[in-house]
């Protein structure tokens, strides 16, 4: 048997062989199995960071503040959670946030659906353009600026009260109330909801509505029995987004609430920054995350995960999950 000579191949060939071997180690033999996992990597990384943060926060929530040193106590305890139960303020702000979440979600969906429907179905390009511009314009104005804008409009000497007093009536107290916060939140959430509902309506072919009409359904019946059920994925997605954003909102309750209508996020801020109690703030954040996740989980369980295309198959025509 002939032994291969070291000179049998030129050096450049051997270098190329080595390079190919290195590439072979890096590049998978069956890329169709690995590439999808690589595409998932950013999502996994994002979730991992969130989970890491939550675990860290859960750990912080188990250490009570020592006011002698302003450091968290070494010992682990449920003292911060006990404080959340003992002090009624926390139940108040959590309940207020949850209630606002429900009210704002319902009100926003009621306003967003017709808006999205008209925007998608209108035969007039002018109307569609106006609606689209109106939809995107608020995104150029930050939440804080918008909230301050409402203060100017609804204040004691604002535009609305100016008109009221101009007509000879007494000025009304329009700001620093729970209702004003809800109003501000609905105005803030509306574009998000429209953006989530519009694709769902776009996916419903106009011929489906025409078929319902040709089979004898009037417009309302066709709308209620065909359009609404088929738009359910968009409605559920919009509802979940609006509810969770409302539940955790800080700026609008802070600015439009006048200091007397705090939400849970404001209480978390206070714990972290006003009273320097990071353990208490962490406990409140964990409770809020748990409540929000549970409620969204229940919604998805009732609506069916397939509603949002999470069931591994497309939603059935006709609205079934």
């Amino acid at each position, binding site marked *: 048997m002939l032994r291969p000579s070291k000179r049998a191949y030129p050096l450049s060939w051997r270098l190329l062989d080595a390079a190919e071997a290195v590439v072979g180690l890096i590049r998978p033999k069956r890329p169709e199995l690995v590439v999808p996992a690589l595409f998932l990597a950013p999502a996994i990384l994002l979730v991992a960071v969130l989970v890491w943060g939550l675990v860290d926060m859960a750990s912080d929530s188990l250490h009570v503040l020592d*006011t002698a040193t*302003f450091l968290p106590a070494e010992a682990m305890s449920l003292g911060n959670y006990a404080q959340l139960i003992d*002090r009624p*303020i926390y139940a108040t702000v959590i309940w207020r946030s949850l209630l606002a979440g429900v009210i704002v979600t319902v009100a926003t969906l009621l306003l967003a659906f017709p808006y999205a429907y008209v925007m998608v179905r209108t035969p007039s390009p002018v109307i569609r353009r106006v609606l689209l511009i109106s939809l995107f314009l608020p995104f150029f104005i930050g939440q804080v600026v918008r909230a301050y804008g409402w203060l100017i409009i609804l*204040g004691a000497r604002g535009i609305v009260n100016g008109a009221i007093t101009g007509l000879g009536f007494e000025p009304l107290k329009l700001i620093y109330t729970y209702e004003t916060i809800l109003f501000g939140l609905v105005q803030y959430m509306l574009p998000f909801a429209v953006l989530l509902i519009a694709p769902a309506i776009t996916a419903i072919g106009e011929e489906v509505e025409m078929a319902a009409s040709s089979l004898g359904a009037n417009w309302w019946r066709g709308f209620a029995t065909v359009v609404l059920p088929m738009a359910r994925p968009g409605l559920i997605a919009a509802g979940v987004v609006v509810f969770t954003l409302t539940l955790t909102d800080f700026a609008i309750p802070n600015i439009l609430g*006048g*200091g007397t209508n705090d939400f849970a996020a404001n209480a978390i801020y206070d714990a972290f920054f*006003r009273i*320097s109690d990071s353990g208490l703030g962490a406990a409140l954040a964990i409770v809020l995350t748990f409540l929000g996740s549970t409620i969204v989980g229940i919604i998805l369980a009732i609506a069916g995960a397939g509603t949002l295309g999470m069931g591994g198959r497309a939603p059935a025509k006709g609205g079934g999950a």
Partner: protein
Amino acid sequence: MRGASRRQVLKGGMMAAAGAALTGTPALVLGRRAFAAEPAKPAEIIVRAWGGVWVEALDKGVSQSFTEATGIRVRHDLTEDNEIQPKIWAAVAQKRVPPIHVNWDTSTNATKSALRGVTEDLSDLSNLPQLLPVAKPVGLEGWPIVNTYSYVYVLAYRTEAFPDGAPKSWTVMLDPKFKGRVALYNDGIGFHPAAQVAGGGKVSDIPANMEPAWEFIRKLKAQQPLLGEDPDFTNWFQQGEIDVACTIISNAREAKQNGIKVDWTVPEEGAKVDTDALWVPKGLPESELYWAKQYVNHAISKGAQQAWTEKLGLPGVQPGLTPPADLAGDPAYPTTPEDFARLISVPTPVLVEHEREWFQTFKEIMQG
């Protein structure tokens, strides 16, 4: 000095003069020290400050003259004091360089940082021995912080709403005609001691029995008060949203100087007097630490104190400052022990220990 050029001699003299301006030490004495090892100067130092009239006063009263004397630019960081605090705490814990060089803080918050051990020792500052006793932190060893002036939480009022003159008592806030037109700080800060007396209690019962204060605040809740922070008060007076407020005198004075028809008084029950402080966080490079401390030393020098606190309308901690013309003799501008006796002072350690509990109780009443 052999071999030194004329320019170098002049430069040395200028450094001595700059140092003298900073420390209040005669130039000749400092001139000898200036040739000792003085750390290199950073291009800038960062000082956290409150916005509005507060940062303007600090800039004109302290920072500009510090820059003139040293050539070091001063950048003001307007992050809220409550928000910078955890950032500094985290930086020190993680052995990172803190985000600012000097923190302008409430004495209560500054004391928390001192208890946590994140403040540098300032006891070698040359201007400390001259200061009034109020400058010394209470309940702490040495000088981890320096109190820089006093301020009073006055009863500010819209003059048009009080044609018969200043209100005499905090109980005016309960008058039904002011429903929805009363304002307090959103954490109740500065109001608890006044509410304690107005509610029929005694200052000596603080903190053991605060029920009279809470009872008064519960009554006030029915008045639907507005709750905000420093800039809100000026804004509310300007917008005609409120008639009476418990706020720091500087905010009321700023509103008045801006042409808003606002005045203030110390009611018969008294008003809370408190202090703010300067401190330097741990973890700074050596040269920056030195110049940060020099900034504090400059801020408590007589010249800077006069300019700074005059603009704020607050009594400084240097003896013999000239009060602003509009505040001379004002009970809300305390300078003598008799003046302070008419006001309500709660020791900082008591505030630090009970702040969380009082905050939560105030919130429970107001959010209910």
